[in-house]
């Protein structure tokens, strides 16, 4: 099958703020899977919610060490309506894969009772067939959540849940690392894990700084092409993933097209002859270095001839949660490779 036949393509249109990177193709939920999910959900219900993990005391004045004392709390993300939480939420539903990853990374995993069908990380997250795109208030409300975290295009869902008094935090797509850090901190506030969220952000900052510092700077800026789907949807520097490439001083060949996720002409990609090609459609569409090299006309590209095609995990490249560090590492490896090859 050709890479451009479009099978299994996923994409985000400019102007259509797709809040979550659509998850990789999943096997259809088998009855067993469904049962397992149900059992997990029941277990979570029966087990009740465990207390927060004990945290090492630091000498710095700890913000809200006792979660209960921190509530009621009003949390707000730029561009979304503020949400007031009367007490610490114990029955959280996350409809955003990025938020799901963050909740588990800041120790709020025990408070999560259900996540959407694309929240495939971490493995223990209680996946349901809810979807951030289509979930309706009744389906979500049936789980009796006390906090729902959803992508920012779920405003209608938020309205519906408001009627039944369920606070809904809408999370917009991050466009910079700072946005991503802010979302982690706000999720920390909302769940009573302010300190762990702050620690996670510190850890991410230092790890990312270290990777960027240890990646050799090329004498002249390298250009790159980031493939979102086989029909040449891409991400510009305006997008979140583009801002991550920006850390390494790379030059994006898609920037003249404008917007965040334009569809490029194949002619332009070949003519631009990028030093590096990153393919973030490895899982959805089985694109890899061999598939790229096999495209008609692409054998003339330097990146193909020198083997500078780097496969990225679709999910890691499309989310702005804790695993951004892995994305930075993969890009750093590519940049380092480009200078040896």
């Amino acid at each position: 099958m050709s890479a451009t036949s479009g099978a299994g393509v996923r994409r985000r249109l400019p102007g259509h703020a797709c809040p979550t990177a659509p998850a990789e193709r999943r096997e259809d939920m088998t009855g067993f899977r469904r049962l397992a999910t149900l059992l997990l959900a029941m277990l979570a219900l029966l087990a009740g919610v465990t207390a927060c993990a004990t945290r090492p005391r630091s000498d710095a004045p700890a913000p809200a060490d006792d979660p209960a004392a921190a509530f009621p709390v009003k949390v707000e993300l730029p561009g979304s309506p503020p949400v007031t939480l009367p007490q610490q939420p114990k029955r959280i539903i996350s409809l955003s894969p990025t938020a799901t990853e963050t909740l588990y990374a800041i120790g709020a995993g025990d408070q999560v009772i259900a996540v959407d069908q694309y929240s495939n990380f971490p493995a223990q997250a209680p996946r349901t067939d809810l979807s951030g795109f289509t979930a309706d208030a009744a389906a979500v409300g049936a789980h009796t959540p006390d906090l729902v975290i959803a992508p920012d295009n779920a405003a209608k869902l938020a309205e519906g849940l408001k009627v039944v008094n369920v606070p809904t935090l809408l999370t917009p797509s991050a466009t910079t690392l700072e946005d991503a850090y802010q979302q982690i901190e706000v999720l920390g506030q909302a769940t009573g894990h302010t300190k762990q969220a702050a620690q996670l952000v510190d850890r991410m900052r230092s790890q990312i700084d270290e990777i960027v510092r240890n990646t050799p700077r090329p004498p002249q800026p390298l250009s790159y092409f980031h493939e979102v789907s086989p029909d040449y949807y891409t991400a510009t520097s305006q997008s979140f993933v583009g801002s991550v490439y920006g850390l390494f001083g790379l030059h994006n060949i898609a920037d003249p097209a404008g917007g965040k996720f334009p569809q490029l002409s194949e002619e332009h990609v070949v003519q631009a002859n990028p030093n590096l090609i990153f393919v973030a459609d490895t899982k959805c569409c089985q694109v890899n270095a061999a598939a790229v090299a096999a495209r008609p006309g692409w054998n003339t590209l330097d990146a193909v001839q020198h083997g500078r095609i780097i496969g990225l995990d679709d999910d890691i490249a499309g989310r702005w949660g804790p695993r951004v560090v892995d994305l930075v590492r993969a890009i750093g490896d590519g940049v380092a490779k480009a200078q040896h090859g």
Partner: protein
Amino acid sequence: MTEALSPARAPLRQTKLRPRHLLVALVVLLASILLSVLLGAAELGWQRVLGEIVAQLTGGMSPLSEREAAILWQLRVPRVVLGVLVGAALAVSGAAFQGVFRNPLADPYLLGAASGAGLGATLVITTAPSVPVQFAAFAGALGGVGLTWLVGRSAGRDTATLVLAGVAVGAFLTAGQTFVQQLRVETLEQVYMWILGRLTTTGWREVLIVLPYLAISAVVLCTCARLLDLLGTGDEEAAALGVHPGWVRLLVLTAASLATAAAVSVAGLIGFVGLVVPHLVRLAVGGSFRIIVPLSLLFGGAFLVVADMLARTVLAPAEIPIGVITAFTGAPFFAVLLHRRRA
């Protein structure tokens, strides 16, 4: 959908295809092809492209680098050729449909080809990504038309029944497509983009895939053009002249549906070409299908090639779905046409 809107009532200024008209259509087509080969998202420079073409013909030195030559011969030219084939297929099918149904609003998607292809494409996009979309769309388009034919035949033998069957089948298949989409919402955008249409090329592969179907259909439709004129006079007169109207309709609709399915399989649902081009030919030259069918073939190719050239260059290096361009030019024309009908 009444026969009162018969295009046969349009003034028949001409009935025979004149060499002059054929020549004009060929010149327009060749000019469109040349323009589209010279212009594109990659700025190769039209003089240098001409130099490359001359060098290819004479074996001389080419001004293009190896990479630029690859862009020209492996990306741009196949796409131009595919544009000609798809445009020609849609326009000639549209002309054939308008002839069979004697309805100026008929287009190649009337009998469920579009909804069938949409369902087929959506099914593989959502459930079986390893199956090529082209194949699924092709099978779906033919399946949709076949289903319409079966439903229509069970109800009656007239064209109006067939059109109504097409409406019912189309609605049913579209509902099926929507249902499948709802199961996998993350594919919405992909399906949506597919519906807008795009000339997708992988080198010369797609051209070779669709060429045989289009060639057979074009030959059949051009030879049947005279029979369409006869059908326009009414079934009884046609039968008196020894033409079996039912068989003619079946043959023409089969050929047109085959061409449409092939076009849809590589380009998605590009609208308005099949509707607009035959009407333009009719307004410019005359109402006989002996003229409309072959000229629609040539002008359809030219129209879509130019539309694709715009899709590639207007926002370069970004692309616009070609369906946006054809609808943008087609929809106003369509409105004018309706207005004239009313007058």
